[in-house]
């Protein structure tokens, strides 16, 4: 299997395909809104958007069970949303309000949500991999059949931590699915300028981990590969590794003048926009009417609009609480102490959103 591409079978049912299209649209619209809100100075700090890469999170998240764990990077708004964190709680977090999923203490790069077992939001490149290994170790030792999915960029592959982590996972046969989002750039450093061997799946294979490269612009291909990998991991097959070949359409962050790549290169990749690709395939197959497309867009827009309302109505945490959450608070915040419950703010965001559009 190693190093070969997995193609999807093509016989996926139309309703499910439309569901995946909606998931990608939800992320796209949320991210577009984030950029707008950043320009309006509502969101501060670093902001990394996922535009162009939506098929990866969409395809992987639909393959997970609620008990599974997810670890992601600072480019994680889409992962959080598709894992089931309400858009309102995400936006309120970026506004720095107490209604945010982390009370405004994390910000864009550090979204966490115990209720959906979403373990962040890590802004140290490769910093999440050892966490995923540890989460999986705990599951294995406790005899739980959960899977821990760990997302990271191809830039992380150069870090020693990457190698240490996948070695441990392989050595101990831990239930981790490593998802390398290979968008070809780590900030301004192209993969070919940082790796002697650019076939990333091969690196995992060197640690005896089954690894595939997948077209990360094809959400159906991602989903099929993720399902197979998740099933294999869950049934005791040890860690698996997917290299998802994708591309980021926007700048690395809001501070990136993009000196390291050409507009032509970006334009070429945008021809493979995952949303456009799936939409076209569905239309060609007669499985997506103009009205249905309009409806999907309207649904995604409505969700984002409600989320903005929720965030706009947010409130700053009283400064008197500044030094809370440095040590756990015995007898304090019950929801935080138990560690699995959903934060009140996050639950409120979920209620505000009315129906949830895409929980796993």
């Amino acid at each position, binding site marked *: 299997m190693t190093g070969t591409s997995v193609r999807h079978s093509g016989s996926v049912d139309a309703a499910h395909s439309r569901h995946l299209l909606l998931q990608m649209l939800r992320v796209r619209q949320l991210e577009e809104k984030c950029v707008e809100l950043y320009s309006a100075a509502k969101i*501060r*700090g*670093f902001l990394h958007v996922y535009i162009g890469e939506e098929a990866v999170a969409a395809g992987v998240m639909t393959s997970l069970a609620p008990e599974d764990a997810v670890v992601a990077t600072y480019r994680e708004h889409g992962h959080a949303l598709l894992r089931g964190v309400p858009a309102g709680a995400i936006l309120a*977090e970026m506004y*720095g*309000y107490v209604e945010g999923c*982390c*009370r*405004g*203490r*994390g*910000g*864009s*790069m*550090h979204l966490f949500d115990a209720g959906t077992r979403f373990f962040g939001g*890590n*802004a*140290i*490149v*490769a*910093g999440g991999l050892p966490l995923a290994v540890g989460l999986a170790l705990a599951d294995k030792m406790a005899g739980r059949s959960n899977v821990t999915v760990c997302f990271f960029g191809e*830039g*992380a592959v*150069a*870090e*020693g*931590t990457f190698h240490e982590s996948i070695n441990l996972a392989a050595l101990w046969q831990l239930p981790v699915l490593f998802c390398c989002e290979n968008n070809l750039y*780590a*900030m*301004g*450093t*192209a993969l070919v*300028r*940082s*790796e002697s061997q650019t076939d990333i799946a091969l690196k995992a294979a060197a640690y005896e981990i089954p690894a595939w490269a997948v077209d990360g612009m094809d959400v159906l291909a991602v989903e099929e590969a993720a399902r197979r990998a998740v099933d294999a991991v869950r049934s005791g097959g040890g860690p698996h590794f997917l290299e998802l070949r994708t591309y980021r359409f926007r700048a690395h962050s809001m501070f*990136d*003048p993009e*000196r*390291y790549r050409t507009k032509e290169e970006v334009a070429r990749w945008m021809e493979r926009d995952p949303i456009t690709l799936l939409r076209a395939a569905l239309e060609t197959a007669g499985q997506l009417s103009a009205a249905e497309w309009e409806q999907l867009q309207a649904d995604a827009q409505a969700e984002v609009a409600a989320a903005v309302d929720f965030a706009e109505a947010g409130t*700053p*945490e009283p*400064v008197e609480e*500044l*030094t809370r*959450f*440095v040590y756990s608070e015995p007898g304090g915040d019950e929801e935080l102490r138990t560690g699995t419950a959903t934060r009140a703010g996050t639950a409120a965001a979920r209620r505000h959103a009315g129906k949830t559009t895409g929980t796993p």
Partner: protein
Amino acid sequence: MKSSYREALRAGIRDAMIRDERVFLMGEDVGAYGGSFAVSLGLLEEFGPDRIRDTPLSESGFVGAGIGAALGGMRPIVEIMTVNFSLLALDQIVNNAATLLHMSGGQFHVPLVIRMTTGAGRQLGAQHSHSLEGWYAHIPGLRILAPATLEDARGMLWTALQDPDPVLIFEHGSLYNVAGELDDDAGPVDISTAAIRRPGKDVSLITYGGTLPAVLDAADQLAADGIDAEVLDLRTLRPLDDAAILASVARTHRAVIIDEGWRSGSLSAEVSARITEQAFFDLDAPVGRVCSAEVPIPYAKHLELAALPSVERIVAAAKATAGAGG
């Protein structure tokens, strides 16, 4: 000549690259990207990819390689994007760079300069807001610099490159855009003394790096209230310029230390201890401190501001000290 802190740093790197062909710059995104804080912008075009060397994401690897290159006779400038990521290279810095000279019985020098951004204040959340220069100042074998002015931004690098031992330069992220006048021929500066940025007789405000502007503002406010504060910029955090600290306290008899690091086990604690050890009988009041709140730096603006030393807190601490004692 008008210059920003960023441009002054760049000019310092250019000077060094031109003066000594053993000098090269290496780090993540120093080349094609133009430097993550645009310090090295344009240098790739001028000096080429061998001397403005982009590295993969591997802090331990490329810092270690910098140590090796220094051992091998080069004069590397290694840029670590920020102090936060230097933790991935801590082993190389503490176990190799700082110890090789000693362990080799004086045989192997490590003439390496490591530059990195430090500090909070830009709503970047806990993992991007550390001020850990005080930690590094704990390590024998390292020299730790904190340029707070344009002259120092431009001039410390060359002197650091002349040092036979490893030097770490901490550039506070809030300073890059600070602009002002800098002499065209601004050149190397000494890297072993503290500097009085504002003379005064009533209280010594001792600080360094990114908090210097706030301390100077505080001194202005204090002046309006009739308190004449002296502002001492430590510049070099290791080894500390004890003589300058003690001389200032001998003049003012009162001291407040302002440090963006956390109070516990901090550089401010060290300075305070030295004052009480060596100038106890000069003091008219207990030494005061303004540090960051003991909390990972929060993202939300109001919480972040509340966590960091502010002009108000500095003024209040100085007044408390001035009001205390005899």
